[in-house]
């Protein structure tokens, strides 16, 4: 056990820091074109697709180097690249499960942001119970015909392509009849409608597919393997981002401490109030524990171990923490914490929401409610932890017997 960074890692961090100092956009990024430009700059510097194989445009870097880049970007509040689903989910899925032809066709264009991706998993009636999805893909000889509705599709409104889960066999148990595909979003049979969230913004869409076409060459893995593939891909992006996530939390936390110095109660600054100090102390302890956890995950990744179901612990831990953190922020900031406009500078939070809007404490507070729902709700994570890590018996479920339909 040695939690010091190696001299190589320290040197690499310095190099990333210098690059960011010289290249960070001076103005906030507002348009998709500006973000694509920033994305390409990051890629050309070698800071995107770092862990992907070199022959497909990746960097072949170690997990620690990826974590350092993400961490330095968080430290400098650098804008995110675009194509987060492409980088985080679709690319890794193609790397692991794709054919050589698929890798050559798609990976490089994810990295250069020439093609933007979305993920077509959830449906109106298949949320936590994702395996009950109804969207169908019917074999037409040289292609599949897709019909159905998807929801909570991140980046759906800008995506050129999507990673799709669809049912190809209704005669077998529901987990076994799902296949994974790549689908062209720019075709007449695909209708994308932005979904407005409680934040007022639209990071997600609903997608309606009516006789949409998927090429045979765009099937990922074998028929019926879609569920297993989805299980592995849901956890891909968590490890590498874990340190950066905590660095962002820490930067928000320090802003909150500064606010607590200025705001007063009973004539005294909040920072002198024993109750407030207790709450700040508790959240900093939890935040640091998240950082220690991130170092544990990174250690695993560096050794080439996949965290597996352990990813559920990580996700449960940080997403639930984020809610508690944002609740404390709102308590300290009072009504300032709810402002989407007009907050004095010292009570503002400038964050990059990656959709061209300036983030606020209010936005961060609202957004914290999403983390314990998306990519498997906390309840689903606890089921996974209970069954796969602790080995507790599965519950008796009404859908465990019989075919999907």
């Amino acid at each position, binding site marked *: 056990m040695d939690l010091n960074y190696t001299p190589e890692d320290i040197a690499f961090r310095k190099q990333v820091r210098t690059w960011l100092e010289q290249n960070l956009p001076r103005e906030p990024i507002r348009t998709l074109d500006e973000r694509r430009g920033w994305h390409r700059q990051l890629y050309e510097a070698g800071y995107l697709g770092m862990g992907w194989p070199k022959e497909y445009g990746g960097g072949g870097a170690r997990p620690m180097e990826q974590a350092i880049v993400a961490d330095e970007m968080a430290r400098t509040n650098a804008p995110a690249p675009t194509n987060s689903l492409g980088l985080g989910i679709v690319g890794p899925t193609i790397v692991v499960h794709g054919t050589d032809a698929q890798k050559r066709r798609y990976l490089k264009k994810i990295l250069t942001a020439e093609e933007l991706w979305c993920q077509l998993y959830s449906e109106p009636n298949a949320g936590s119970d994702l395996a009950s999805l109804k969207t169908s893909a019917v074999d037409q000889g040289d292609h599949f015909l897709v019909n159905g509705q998807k929801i909570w599709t991140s980046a759906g409104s800008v995506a050129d392509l999507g990673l799709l889960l669809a049912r190809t066999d209704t005669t077998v148990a529901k987990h076994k009849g799902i296949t994974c595909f790549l689908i062209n979003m720019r075709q007449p049979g695909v209708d994308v409608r932005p979904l407005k969230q409680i934040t007022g913004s639209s990071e997600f869409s609903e997608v309606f597919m009516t006789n949409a076409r998927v090429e045979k060459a765009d099937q990922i893995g074998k028929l019926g393997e879609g569920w297993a593939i989805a299980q592995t891909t849901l956890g891909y992006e968590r490890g590498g981002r874990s340190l950066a996530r905590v660095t962002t939390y820490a930067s928000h936390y320090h802003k909150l401490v500064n606010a607590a110095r200025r705001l007063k109660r009973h004539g005294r600054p909040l920072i002198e109030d024993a109750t407030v100090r207790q709450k700040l102390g508790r959240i900093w302890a939890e935040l640091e524990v998240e950082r220690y956890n991130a170092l544990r995950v990174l250690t695993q990744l560096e050794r080439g171990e996949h965290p597996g179901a352990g990813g559920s612990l990580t996700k449960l*831990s940080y997403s639930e923490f984020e809610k508690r953190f944002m609740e404390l922020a709102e308590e300290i900031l009072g009504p300032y914490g709810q402002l989407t406009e007009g907050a004095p500078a010292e009570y503002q939070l400038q964050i990059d929401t990656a959709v061209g809007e300036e983030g606020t404490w209010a936005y961060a507070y609202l957004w914290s409610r999403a983390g314990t729902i998306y990519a498997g709700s906390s309840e689903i994570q606890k089921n996974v*932890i209970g069954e796969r890590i602790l080995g*507790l*018996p599965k519950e008796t479920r009404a859908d465990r017997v019989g075919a999907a339909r």
Partner: protein
Amino acid sequence: MNFAFTEDQVLLRNSVRSVLDEQCKPAHVRALMDDPRGYSDALWSEMGKLGWLGLPFPEPQGGAGLGLVELCLVQEEMGRAAYSGPYFSTVALAGLGLMLAGDHGQKEKWLSAFAAGTARGTAALLEDGLDWDPASTGTTAVKSGGGWTLSGLKRFVPWAQVADVILVPARAPEGLSLFLVDPRSPGVRLTPMVGIDLANRWSEMRLDQARVPADTLLGEPGTAAPVLESLLRRAAVCASAEMLGAARRCLDMSVDYAKVREQFGQPIGSFQAIRHRCADMLLAVENCHSAVYYAAWALGAGAEDAAVAASICKAYVSEAARQVCGDAIQVHGGIGFTWEYDLHLYFKRAKALEPLFGDAEYHRELIARHVSA
């Protein structure tokens, strides 16, 4: 950067676990509850032979020269076994205290004897007001006849009844100082304080004009404050490791029980109410692991954030371990509330250690000072 145990550390943990599984079964712990000394000589001398008693001490004094991470590994296993005996008080309190402040002769005398298993020690770090800030020390030390005279009242001195030497902070004219006191000296009186954890002993220690020789002073007079702060941090992290062990044992027992206990015609672990509680317990235990071993590494390596990491560790583990051990009783239902079932041994161990070396509130205030400095 590597947040994983080395092969040697894993071997150490496995060896401690197998010895305690064999020689410190719950029946052994229970048998010692009525024993006035509260520990087994046979196991103590076995621990000496295995090198546990001198684990962090320098090799010239018979130690193994290992670090705080290794000591925490042992402490975690002791919590898991609800070990009854003066290991923590001897090695982590008296031992680390002597390592921090003792001169060559003092270390030679005591660390060697601790490591060999021929002496036991402890430290008297708390007084009437239950303030862990060393500055609150009210016990006095007055120079007299080439030695010192100590007067005051110490509370909750762990395993004092079997100690051969007790580290005692006292206020000298020069300032806060630290003395090595023989509990059998005239003017020293120990009275047992019996808590809910009967495998853990405390005494009240009354010093009434107790005379100690000049060579019992650790370091120079008036220099003890930073030593005590250092020692308290180490003690807080070692105690957290023991709480972690107790919590992990409670989690394991709960999961095992939830797999076999049937109600409504199925194992209770198949119900989400139980399964989700167990998942929450695992999350808390894993977070405790991160907090303990990060802090142990940071203190051992002299990392920049070592002091606050120790506070984070104790603040987090104090509450999390209590929660996990309490949840374990809830998962077990009625049987978990019986004396006969072993769960309460670990529940009580975690509770006993929770207020020691600063409770969660105490350490959260230290964290607040750190982040608002």
